[in-house]
């Protein structure tokens, strides 16, 4: 009996010393430092589930540790008033992460560089709102436009989307059936009051918990197993894509704005080198290189057809930028040089479109 007690005592003392040592290590030595779900959440952008798009940026100021400034209305970049000031030419850019411009630093995302470049050319009353959201496909962007963006009364609306649409191209089901409900990760949210208390008092607990949930999330497949998909591209989805683009044009016109369609610039091209292919995240879309090139071509063809059929202003950004290795980090996210190149192109083209329109 005494031997058991002695062993128990040694175990308890060892555990207490280990926990104490762990607390010192995680708080003062570890590279990760002091973490809690709340602190980790503050490091990235906070999203909330949405009705018209899968998720939205809430209406609160966020800085994502100095990386991306999101204003009080939930849009990247400088503040703007809901009511458009008289004489202002309000421009909105809609799309996914290539429009949000994840590779660009604050004040240099291509939509805001367009604003600066236009001001340098004398269009001082131009105001650009970056309405891009990371991960948005054309349906999300359309939802964001008809459920909020139109209330800002934009005069011109840019729109492009491709990569995030390709993500559902292998689905055997309609877009409506796709199971992508926005869930709050336990990595970034407390699961109970006890969990919160433990995270806030023990860094050993907080780090072990972090490791556990990260391991659990790594084990989850990139595409939900409930989401039925085949090995072949289902080109029926191109009809969905075409409809989204057409509806976007009509929605913009219905509120009196001028829609400007763009093709999405991408690194992907049939001539990609092995070095470039290393950067393309094939697993995100579950398509091989040939399928991807083909899908991009088909999507761009649709945009050009809609442009021709509906007489829409158009900037062929893909024709100008795609395949240029130094402009992209990966398949489609622009480097800082890429953002600047796109901003130069868009500002030049916008000036042309604007002058054509005011001259009648």
């Amino acid at each position, binding site marked *: 009996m005494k031997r058991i007690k002695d062993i128990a005592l040694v175990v308890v003392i060892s555990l207490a010393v280990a926990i*104490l040592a762990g607390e010192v290590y995680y*708080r003062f030595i570890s590279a990760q430092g002091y973490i809690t779900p709340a602190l980790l959440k503050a490091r990235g952008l906070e999203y909330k589930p949405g009705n018209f798009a899968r998720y939205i940026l809430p209406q609160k100021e966020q800085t994502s540790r*100095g990386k991306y400034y999101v204003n009080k209305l939930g849009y990247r970049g400088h503040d703007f008033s809901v009511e458009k000031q008289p004489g202002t030419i309000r421009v909105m850019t809609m799309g996914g992460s290539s429009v949000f411009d994840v590779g660009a630093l604050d004040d240099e995302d291509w939509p805001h560089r367009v604003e600066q470049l236009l001001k340098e050319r004398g269009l001082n009353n131009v105001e650009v709102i970056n309405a891009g959201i990371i991960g948005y496909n054309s349906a999300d962007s359309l939802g964001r436009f008809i459920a909020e963006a139109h209330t800002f009364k934009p005069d011109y609306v840019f729109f492009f989307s491709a990569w995030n649409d390709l993500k559902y191209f292998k689905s055997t089901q309609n877009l409506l059936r796709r199971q992508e409900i926005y869930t709050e990760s336990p990595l970034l949210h407390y699961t109970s009051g006890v969990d919160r208390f433990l995270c806030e008092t023990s860094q050993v607990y907080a780090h072990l918990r972090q490791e556990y949930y990260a391991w659990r999330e790594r084990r989850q497949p990139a595409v939900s197993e409930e989401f039925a998909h085949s090995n072949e591209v289902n080109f029926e989805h191109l009809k969905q894509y075409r409809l989204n683009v057409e509806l976007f044009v009509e929605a913009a016109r219905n509120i009196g704005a001028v829609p400007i369609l763009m093709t999405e610039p991408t690194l992907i091209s049939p001539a990609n080198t092995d070095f470039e292919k290393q950067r393309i995240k094939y697993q995100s879309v579950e398509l091989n290189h040939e399928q991807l090139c083909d899908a991009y071509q088909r999507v761009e063809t649709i945009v050009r057809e809609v442009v021709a059929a509906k007489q829409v202003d158009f900037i062929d950004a893909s024709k100008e930028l795609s395949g240029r290795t130094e402009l992209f980090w990966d398949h489609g996210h622009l480097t800082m040089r890429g953002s600047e190149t796109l901003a130069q192109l868009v500002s030049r083209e916008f000036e042309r479109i604007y002058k054509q329109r005011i001259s009648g």
Partner: protein
Amino acid sequence: MDQTLTGSDSLSPAIPRARRTGWKWLLIGVTAWVLAMVVLQVVSNSRLAYHQRAAQALTQATLVYVEQVAADQHEQKLRRAREAYESVAADFPNTEAAQVARFYSIRISYRLKEWDKAENDIDTFIEQGNDPDDYIVRAMEIRYQIYQARGETEKAAEYFHEVIEADLIR
């Protein structure tokens, strides 16, 4: 005392005293452990508050940087923003916010075409090695842009490979 140590006789009158001594040490141990945890928590909270003040100062600097201004005031805005970032780095050394602020100061130097200053600061930034996110790779990209801006096209193209490789292994 010998009996206590050997524990050979449970009826010995010394044993209750030994038990009392054991409990006393256990109590001391638990109290010391709890105290140590409390001290750690207090120190951590104070450090956390310091880091949060640094993050707030960084947000203020960011607000200066993203402010919408007329074209002829843009350069002044950049200089004001750089001063604000440099203040964050000076006022809150050894924080993540300071490191991000140093990075943005470099970027602003690049945008103001002060390429020599930007390049020197990039060297220091990379040497420090403390990267809260992907800022070292981004600093490398600024160096690539400096090569481009100086017309060193071949050097830039070679260096771009290094930048992408650094990003891929990150």
